[in-house]
Structure formats: structure tokens, C-alpha cells
């Protein structure tokens, strides 16, 4: 459960990510593909080599969706309904993979946020990413 302080912290953090959405998103994806090669199986239709246009474009989409969720934490299920349907019925990603991307997002943020990545911020982001993934996986069955 996210406290009100944590919700505000999440909004602040993700608002700062919007201008660098491509960098952050593509780095998180690249980290995931490198550390957990099985995740590449979902991207055979894209060029996911480092710095490719596809990787940057896809990374940007993910960060923007997260920022959108951050601004609408109290209504995550409604806000993410289309994405939720997309992940359940079209993408059909094995649910364990959400944790892998979440971890790589955290690692990327840790690399770039410096001192702002306090234990409290770390906890809040981890909770937010779990809640976000839970909504995305909601319609799986």
C-alpha cells in the first residue's frame, strides 16, 4: 500500500523521467535483455540492439505509461485498462517477466538518480512498479 507521501514522491520522480524517457526506457530494456535473455523472445519483431530506434521508441512508451500511472495512482485499474487488455489478450507475456523488467527499471534509476535514490524512494518505486504490474497482469485469467 502506498502512503500519501509515497504517492507524491512517485509523481515527482516520474515527472523527472519524462524528458529522458527514451534514455531511461531503452536502458532498462537493454539491461533486461542482457541479464535475462529469455525476455528477448517477446521482441523478435523488433530490432532491440543497443541504441536502435525500436529500442528507444519502445523504452519511451514504457516510461510514459509509467509516468501516466504515477499521476493516476488512485485510479490505476481504469487508467491502465487498455494496456491491461493488450498485455493479457495480445501480448500474453508470462507474468514472471514483469518482475524482471521492474528490477531493471530500478537498477537504471539507481544509476541515474544519485543521492535521490534513497531507501525510501527505492521502496516507494518498488511498490509502485508492483502495483502497476499487478494491474497489467490482472486480466490474464
Amino acid at each position, binding site marked *: 500500500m502506498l502512503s500519501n507521501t509515497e504517492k507524491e514522491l512517485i509523481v515527482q520522480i516520474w515527472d523527472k523521467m519524462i524528458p529522458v524517457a527514451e534514455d531511461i526506457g531503452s*536502458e532498462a530494456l*537493454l*539491461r533486461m*535483455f*542482457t*541479464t535475462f535473455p529469455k525476455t528477448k523472445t517477446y521482441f523478435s519483431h523488433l530490432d532491440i540492439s*543497443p541504441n536502435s530506434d525500436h529500442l528507444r521508441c519502445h523504452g519511451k512508451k514504457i516510461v510514459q505509461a509509467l509516468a501516466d500511472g504515477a499521476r493516476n495512482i488512485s485510479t490505476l485499474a481504469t487508467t491502465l485498462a487498455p494496456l491491461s487488455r493488450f498485455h493479457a489478450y495480445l501480448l500474453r507475456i508470462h507474468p514472471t517477466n514483469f518482475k524482471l523488467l521492474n*528490477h531493471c527499471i*530500478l*537498477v*537504471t534509476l*539507481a*544509476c*541515474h*538518480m*544519485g543521492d535521490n*535514490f*534513497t*531507501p*525510501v524512494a*527505492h*521502496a516507494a518505486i*518498488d511498490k509502485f512498479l508492483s502495483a502497476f504490474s499487478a494491474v497489467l497482469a490482472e486480466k490474464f485469467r
Partner: protein
Amino acid sequence: MVQWTAGERAAIQGVFAKLDYESVGLESLTRCLVVYPWTQRYFGGFGNLYNAEAIMANPKIAAHGTVVLKGLEKALKNMDNIKNTFTALSELHSEKLQVDPGNFQLLADCLTVVLARRMTTDFTPDIQAAWQKFLSVVISALRRQYY
């Protein structure tokens, strides 16, 4: 047996070379106890764990963080035989400490995040991959004596 490429060995040794065991151990354990509060169940005798500041200032947590990192160093020094090197530690965690092995991954993830924070762009995706492979071998060795 685990196969390590020359690149992976170099990456892992490189990470250890820059590692300050005391401060990385303390910060990793603190983050684990804060981000995954249920792990505090194993630290009942450690004193004040009330919030992140208290945990970071707790000398028992600091001491334990160093113990954990020294354990990882043992794995580094025996990279081709981590499984057997960790038999006693595995028994300790399962029989005596009775730690749910699911929690090993949580501490490992916090350790990875701490390294990312300190090494920033030096913690490249390739180095991260090698490092996480190393940690997963350690975790697997720690899980072996659970039955």
C-alpha cells in the same frame, strides 16, 4: 558445473575490486529491510530497525552487512566450486537461521541496486548480467541444503 567466460570473470572481479564491503554491506541490508519489511523478522535481536535512518546507523546491521559481503568474497575466491564452498552456509541458513530462501533474491536485488547507484554508468548491462549470474549461482548454492 557453472561455466564462466573470461569476460564474466573479469566483470565480477572488477566489481569486487571497487567494493567497500562495510558501506555496501550496510546499505544493501538497510535497503532490503526497508523495501521488503518482512525480512526484518530475521533481525529481532538487532535493536532499532524503526526506519531507514535508524537501520543505517545500527552497528549490528553494519557488522552483519560486512559478514554477508565477506561471504560473497568466499564465492569469488572459489568461483568454480561455489556449490560445495557454501554447503556449511546453506545448512546454517536452513537449519539454524531458518530463512525462507525466497528472501535471498531480495537481498541480492538490493545489492545489485546499491552497486548501480555507486558505479552509475560503469555498471553496464554486460557487467550487470555477469554480476547477477554470479549472485544466482550463490543463491542456488545457499538453497541446496534446504529439505
